[in-house]
């Protein structure tokens, strides 16, 4: 009796480990052409983004950040600060690394938005779908990434491709949630008015609901970008290049300086991207 109170009864045991292993092995042996195709097309997409990012010379990027931050903040001091921070990444010798990281972040964010915005709209339209979608989104955000990263490596190989997939899984939920939330929040009376004027469903969606929900949707986009940045180091544990792999090297070699240098660069990238996207969404308000 005492044992039953303190220890979970061993007799009730269901083995879910073996079926999962079997399923992964099955995928490995039978679906590898499919995964190869996915991997190849993602690789092409990543290469395209990588070469687009790399085509921007360092000074142009700094100037671009200068003007962009001036546009959103209207303060010359802010834009000087942001471009100086970016310049600082170059000074500590991590500019190339930052480019590699940016390529992964941008690729994942683009994929997240391509999937997330439509899904968010669909989710806002139907309560039934959202009942199923919410736990899925929760799982995506809380499942420890390494759990699915390792099968991803087995299926897709090591490097930037599984990194983009993992980042997308983690960064996708906020944009879906906030898109759906934003659209639902739009005043019912506004929608009624649009209906009264004879708008079609599509017209209501694109001309009334989405413009009204734009600040919330942009907050979702901003969150998605931040989430993508927070995955940088995890992704480097499966061979993604860039600032994250610098952090890992620093940790593995007990070189705290190296780790901090790369860590600071990640923080700077995050701050600049955050302020710029936030600025855009404030302007929309």
């Amino acid at each position: 009796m005492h044992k039953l109170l303190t220890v979970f009864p061993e007799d009730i045991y269901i083995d879910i480990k073996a079926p999962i292993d079997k399923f992964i092995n099955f995928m490995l042996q039978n679906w590898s052409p499919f995964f190869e195709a996915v991997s190849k097309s993602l690789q092409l997409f990543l290469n395209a983004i990588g070469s687009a990012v790399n085509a921007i010379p360092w000074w142009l990027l700094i100037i671009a950040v200068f003007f962009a931050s001036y546009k959103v903040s209207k303060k010359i001091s802010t834009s000087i600060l942001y471009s100086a921070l970016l310049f600082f990444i170059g000074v500590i010798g991590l500019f190339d690394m930052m480019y590699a990281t940016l390529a992964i972040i941008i690729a994942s964010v683009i994929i997240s938005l391509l999937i997330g915005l439509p899904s968010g709209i669909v989710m806002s339209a139907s309560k039934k779908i959202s009942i199923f979608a919410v736990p899925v989104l929760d799982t995506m955000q809380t499942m420890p990434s390494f759990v699915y990263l390792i099968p991803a490596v087995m299926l897709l190989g090591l490097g930037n491709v599984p990194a983009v997939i993992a980042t997308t899984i983690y960064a996708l939920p906020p944009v879906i949630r906030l898109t759906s939330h934003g659209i639902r929040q739009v005043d019912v009376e506004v929608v009624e008015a649009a209906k009264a004027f004879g708008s079609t469903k599509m017209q209501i969606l694109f001309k009334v609901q989405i413009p009204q929900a734009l600040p919330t949707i942009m907050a979702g986009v901003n969150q998605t970008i931040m989430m993508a940045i927070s995955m940088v180091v995890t992704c480097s544990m499966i061979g993604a290049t860039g600032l994250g792999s610098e952090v890992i090297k620093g940790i593995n070699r007990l070189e705290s300086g190296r780790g901090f240098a790369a860590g600071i660069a990640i923080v700077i990238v995050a701050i600049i991207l955050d302020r710029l996207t936030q600025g855009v969404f404030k302007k929309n308000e």
Partner: protein
Amino acid sequence: MLIRIKHITIIVVVMQKYRLLKKAKRDECIMKKRGLIMLICVAALLISSGCTQQSEKIIFGDVGWDSMKFHNAVAMYIAETAYDLETEEISGSTPVTYGALKKGDIHLYMETWTDNIPAYSGDVQSGELIELGVNYDDNIQGLYVPRYVVEGDPSRGIEPLAPDLKMVEDLKNYKDVFTDPEDASKGRIYGSISGWEIDEIMRKKVEYYGLDEFYNYIDPGSDAALSASIAGAYEKGEPIVAYYWEPTWITGKYDLLLLEDAPYEESLYRQGKCECPSVRLTVCANPQFVKDNPEFVEFLSKYSTSSELTSKALMYINENNAEYADAAKWFLVEYDNLLDEWLPSDKAELVRGELLK
């Protein structure tokens, strides 16, 4: 009539007040009840945790690879049965657990890859760590390819893609076999994990043989990712060339071929110009722990196995889906003579008795 209405109003007001009062009382009551339930719960929790509370434990470091976990399991079993000591295993990366070992938060490593920890020899000399003995020193590390890459595998319908691949330098001719998916112009070598000392040596080796012209040497980021890459490629029947080491379940489960290299010479090794020597895998411990547990340490200093024995145990784990603790029991039954080598006869009998149960 008027009076009546007044009366009724008064009654109603009084009743309302009474109800409110009652409600407040009831709420208070519920609160009290809740508090009591909470208290009981906390008490129950404390009592049940008190039941399982343990005294001084021996804390084993676990750096994640399976041979170390297996040796931990064997030593833990003996600590519990022969010496009646509580044990615990703490997992973490090499740098984290190594730091903890020096500080004393972790008491011992059963399998220290001495060459892969740059600070190790210094720490042993300065007495910050005590090397108790050599667990085994006939392991192998180097660049591996699946055997089917060289010999083919008719049963799986795999053609030999690199039939004349034997030495590390032969890789030059096969860059198109081991194509880097991220850079089609070159091949890909899955390297060692950055931060292990062998990583520097492997990089030098790639340069020394002029392979850097044909291959990208990739940092896999973590050992889990490295094993996943090998396992994934093998299951799919694809070619792969990767740094790895033996004994592991990977090398036990998959038929991998070690690429040959020039014979070992101490002066050439650090420059990556020859094969890797066997690493001394030692049992080492925190000095305070050694002082506190002389009897158990006596056993640890005699603890010695071999690469072959270890890979047999790892194979057992893989084939039977066994837990490390079960494998430890199987191992001690199978290689019963080890008990006599490691333990005084009375202690060995204690373990044997427990194994029979």
